[in-house]
């Protein structure tokens, strides 16, 4: 059995999960608000950019699919948190990626 990953390893994996529309990761968008691993269950807290986000189901699927590929993760629990999100939550790298896509 592989050891369970650390929260930082979860974050590293989520840095590879892109927003369904633009080529920017969920981490760089500032959507990842909490990470923990307990008994082979990865727990993720995610905020969405808006209540009317059209991509919540796709994002949840992508997060689950990616984290289940990590050794030591057997279950993924995603909690949607209704925290404020604004463009100031986007990392400089995320802003640069959005600018290249013509949307920042």
């Amino acid at each position: 059995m592989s050891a369970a990953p650390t929260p930082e390893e979860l974050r590293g994996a989520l840095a590879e999960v892109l927003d369904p529309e633009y080529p920017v990761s969920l981490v760089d968008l500032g959507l990842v608000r909490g990470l923990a691993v307990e008994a082979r269950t990865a727990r993720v807290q995610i905020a969405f950019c808006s209540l009317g986000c059209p991509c919540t189901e796709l994002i949840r699927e992508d997060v689950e699919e990616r984290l289940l590929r990590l050794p030591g993760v057997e279950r993924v629990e995603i909690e949607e948190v209704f925290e404020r999100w604004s463009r100031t939550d986007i990392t400089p790298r995320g802003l640069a990626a959005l600018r290249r896509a013509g949307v920042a």
Partner: protein
Amino acid sequence: MDDAELLERIRQGRLVEGPEHASERYLEGLKRTLVVSGDTELISAPAYLRAAQHAPRMQSYISVVGIIQDELGHAHIAYRMLRDLGVDTDALVYEREPKDFRYPYAFDVPLDSWYEMVVANGFYDRAGFVLLGDIYRHTSYGPWKRALVKVDREETFHLRHGERWMRTLAQDPEHKPKLQAAVDWMFVMTLEWFGLPDDLKRHTEQLGFGLKGMSNDELRQEWMSTAVPFCESIGIDVPAHLDEATGRYVIDIPFPLEFDEGEKRWLLEEGAIGWDRVLARWKRRGPANEEFVAQLQAGYRDLQAGLAA
């Protein structure tokens, strides 16, 4: 600038940035292409909104509304460029007769179920993606090329939404036949979308001036090259297959065909018809043309009436 100077500029790989770099014929071709693009994006809004009422969950409804918002943004890009070229876009969008809109006939056939909604995302948005992707890669018009970076990304999401739902519905024995029924009429409808085959096509300035890169038949092939394998991968039948010898997709039924709008059925039994009959049907427009255009123009009409009162 005359055509020869312009063609030399394009040959050098320099983009056209405005009317000062273009000829009359180029501008006419560009405007015609932009009107088709803007109209197509715009009409998808009422078409998809009507279909969204069949969404199985609130989140699915929100996804379609998000897609509609994107499409309106894309329409705005095309109309905004027309306005910059001196076109009266208020008259174009809000005062034009429904029959004079230039979007594909496919959008005149109303989408009446969630099955048809997601196949529209899987097929029609794929057609948009193919057409606009070609323009993005090949257009000689600089402002459009730059604007399409974002459009390309957003259409990817629409396509994924369609494929995700088609895959889910295809796995359920109760839903699969209804999905297949939607595919049966919408697949051929999308083949038709790409227009006249190359040996009958006019408007050669579109290719000659580098407004787009691929011909109608090439674009139809490009669409089939992803649509057909996708449908095969989820166990949905489509009337086309890859000919391994030539590497090209072959349509397995007579094409083009006459369409029964009431039954949403292609009249296979009547065999292939001439493109002149297809063009005549497009010109007549289909069942939802007036309703959708009226919906788009209603707010403007109300506003004008209010201002006049």
